[in-house]
């Protein structure tokens, strides 16, 4: 290797929170060459963000760097003086932080935040700084009149671009990008990443890119390191990792990513032997509409979240409701589960028109028939109650089981969703389990009433990539065994492709396109669906019309 611009050797970081410190990063080493795009991949808690923040020594208390050294441009960061460190930050290396949405100071305008950096590092003030700020905004495709905006007036994508503009402000040779697009919708994410890659071509800097999304990095990184539990488990060139990698964890990660394009992988999820549905739908919604209105007399604001949506679901079917944030998909979930009252339209269950009421007047019968699984497994379980309480309450309330039957039935339920031994899990509290286990409990709770329909609102998006397919498999299996009907709500076209029989694409509260999953993926009719499919497929970077080098297909085992 030629002379590396960054070299990290045996870096270890601890968090001092109690008598015993928590080791967050352990003996991490890697080198990055000048001009390279280096990727760092890991699930939440793997320590990837800790590594980069330790490299810049910006980790806030209670962190402590206990071992190792970091050379940037042959300068030892760990031995540098305070003045050296302040001086080296942003001049030598800048960072686009994870959750960049919160990285901007809420009370300073965009102008002030860009000026701060220019003034400190370049001594630019007044009109000179303004000119530079305008230049930077045009680099990231933002109109310069946004300079006087405050962060709360900008959309997520805009904030992200402004943070990137700040990172470019004084043209450091290295830019760290820590999950720069995680909070954004897939299409915006793709736009921003292609912008970054375009800028790199123009301005020539080294990128250290951190993400949980291996798929994304395979598109454009040169080399990458995979982290797990604070350690690097694999470090290799992208083309070798695309072939499946050496470490079992890498293999698992690669294998757990469904693709929204190409030939359908076989055997990823359980499917019934044959798919036949009855003639009459079990659930039908007609012209559903939900308008949110602020009741303030001074400014009436109207937000149409759901605008005339109609669809049918048949017994034993899995429907994928796919859309980006703001598409109204979660509102539809709340309307169908009657957590919210629709502004107009009707809901038919088994052919009966269910009168539209406030959620507190919904009859128990409806509750028993339609259950829901939420996105955030920590938020949907009450931390003061045990797993047993969560599963027993619905059964008590609906008088389905008596005292003696309760415990064995709950143990049985837990084992059905893969939590064995069930009697041990029944006694646990939510904080004593992992995210995946918690989500399984939430699914078991939804199943406990033996409902006919389950509405699953992004049930895997808060879970680690490597366990997502296992959780989806529970739904697939329950459908095959119990003829369960599932309304699967997701932003991820690829997972909808594999779980759902039919996909409905939503945008701005209305249905864009509806078709059988495979048909919709293979031959999308509407422009928006095409964009979504492209953005979720490998090779999207080259398909954006820029002349990027095309990477080889990797997902065709």
């Amino acid at each position, binding site marked *: 290797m030629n002379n590396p611009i960054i070299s990290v050797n045996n870096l270890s970081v601890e968090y001092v929170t109690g008598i015993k410190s928590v080791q967050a990063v352990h003996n991490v080493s890697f080198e990055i060459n000048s001009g390279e795009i280096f990727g760092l991949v890991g699930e939440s808690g793997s320590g990837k963000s800790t590594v980069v923040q330790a490299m810049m020594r*910006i980790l806030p208390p209670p962190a402590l760097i206990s071992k190792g050294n970091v050379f940037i441009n042959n300068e030892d960061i760990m031995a540098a003086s305070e003045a050296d460190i302040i001086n080296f*930050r942003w001049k030598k290396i800048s960072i686009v*932080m994870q*959750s960049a949405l919160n990285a901007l*100071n809420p*009370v*300073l305008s965009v102008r002030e935040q860009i000026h701060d950096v220019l003034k400190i590092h370049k001594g630019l003030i007044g009109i000179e700084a303004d000119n530079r700020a305008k230049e930077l905004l045009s680099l990231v495709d933002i109109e310069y009149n946004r300079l006087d905006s405050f962060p*709360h007036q900008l959309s997520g994508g805009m904030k992200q671009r402004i943070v990137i503009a700040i990172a470019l402000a004084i043209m450091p040779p290295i830019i760290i990008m820590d999950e720069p697009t995680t909070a954004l919708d897939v299409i915006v994410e793709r736009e921003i990443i292609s912008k970054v890659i375009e800028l790199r071509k123009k301005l020539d800097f080294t990128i250290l890119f951190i993400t949980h999304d291996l798929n994304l990095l395979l598109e454009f990184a040169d080399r990458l390191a995979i982290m797990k539990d604070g350690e690097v488990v694999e470090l290799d060139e992208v083309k070798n990792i695309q072939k499946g990698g050496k470490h079992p964890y890498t293999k698992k990660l690669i294998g757990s990513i469904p693709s929204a394009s190409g030939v359908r992988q076989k055997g990823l999820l359980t499917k019934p032997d044959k798919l036949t549905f009855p003639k009459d739908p079990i659930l039908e919604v007609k012209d559903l509409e939900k308008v949110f209105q602020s009741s303030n007399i001074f400014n009436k604001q109207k937000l149409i979240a759901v605008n005339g949506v109609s669809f049918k679901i048949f017994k034993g079917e899995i429907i994928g409701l796919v859309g980006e944030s703001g598409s109204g998909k979660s509102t539809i979930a709340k309307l169908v589960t009657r957590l919210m009252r629709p502004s107009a339209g009707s809901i038919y269950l088994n052919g009966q028109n269910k009168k539209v009421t406030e959620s507190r007047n919904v009859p128990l019968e409806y509750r028993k028939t339609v259950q829901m699984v939420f996105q955030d497994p920590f938020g949907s379980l009450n931390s003061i109650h045990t797993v047993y309480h969560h599963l027993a309450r619905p059964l008590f309330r609906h008088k389905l089981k008596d005292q003696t039957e309760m415990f064995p039935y709950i143990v049985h339920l837990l084992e059905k969703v893969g939590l064995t031994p069930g009697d041990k899990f029944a006694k646990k509290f939510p904080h004593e389990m992992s995210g995946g286990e918690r989500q399984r409990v939430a699914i078991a709770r939804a199943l406990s009433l033996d409902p006919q329909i389950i509405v699953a609102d992004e049930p895997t998006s808060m879970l680690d990539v490597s366990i997502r397919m296992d959780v989806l498999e529970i739904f697939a299996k329950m459908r095959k065994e119990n003829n369960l009907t599932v309304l699967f709500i997701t932003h991820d076209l690829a997972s909808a492709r594999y779980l759902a029989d039919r996909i409905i694409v939503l945008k701005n509260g209305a249905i864009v396109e509806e078709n059988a999953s495979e048909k919709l993926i293979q031959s999308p009719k509407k422009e928006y669906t095409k964009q979504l499919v492209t953005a979720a497929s490998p090779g999207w970077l080259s398909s954006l019309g820029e002349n990027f080098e095309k990477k080889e297909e990797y997902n065709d085992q």
Partner: protein
Amino acid sequence: MNKSILYIARRFGFYLIAAFAALTLNFIIPRLMPGDPASIIFARFKGKLKPEAIDAMRESFGLTNDPIITQYASYLKGILQGDLGISIAYFPEPVSEIIGGGLIWTIFLAGSSMVIAFLIGTTLGVIIAWNRTGKLDTILPPALAFFGAFPYFWLAMVVLYIFGFSMNWFPIGRAFGNEVNPGLNTPYLLSVLYHAFLPALTLVFVSLGGWMLSMRNTMISTLGSDYITFANAKGIPSRLIMLRYAARNAILPNLTGFGMALGFMLSGALLTEMIFSYPGQGFLLLQAVQSQDYPLMQGIFMTITLAVLGANWLVDIAILFFDPRTRR
């Protein structure tokens, strides 16, 4: 900018409602008492007051035989004309004139000591949250909390006892000395400051700890936010991070708290005035209580409520200035 005006107007609307509620409460309370208020007054003051004074008081409460709605209407009309009734203790002086003289002193004493306490407390909060290795952070919060635990008026008694009666360093009453002529002249202003010093000192001391502590706590959670880490990464000098990034954000909830606490703090100021015989609303209130001068009490309640509502409105405007999120 349009939205700012709307915000100010909306807050004003709220304070109008609050003022109206206070007016109504003021009207209702005497009528809610067990038995007929007219006879309560009669029973309490029989023999103590001249019959014409009792009649005047009845009249100032609008306690006629008219239906209650008519009474309410004429009560509101009277208030709008600045008619707060006739005082009993100072019979036959109208309440509005008695109050008028004291209001300015209360606003001066309570207002300035609250602002001083807020400024010092907030600054200390920033410093101890920032410098948490220092001894200051371990000593100051409990020490000031201890001062904060004393009843305002009791601390005022002790301070007055020590510095006023025992040592004779400070005056033991009034807002300015006999020897000066009120007006814009140095001896007068110095005398005013001299007389206000002890009461203001006790007010500042008792309320300091609360501001310091809440600023410290919001500052600590602000220091944990992403934009502080990002500012560090940007190489921004730590002094600038402390003031422009952390304190600038942390002060916002405290400003809201300042508005909310105004009414509460003012109560302490009133009690302190009583101890120092400081000629403000508190001192008047004490006299009103001692002579059971209901019209005066209710007049004081009304004026103080209006003053607090006005001050709250000013705080809202200050928040508008500090927090861009309210502007649009």
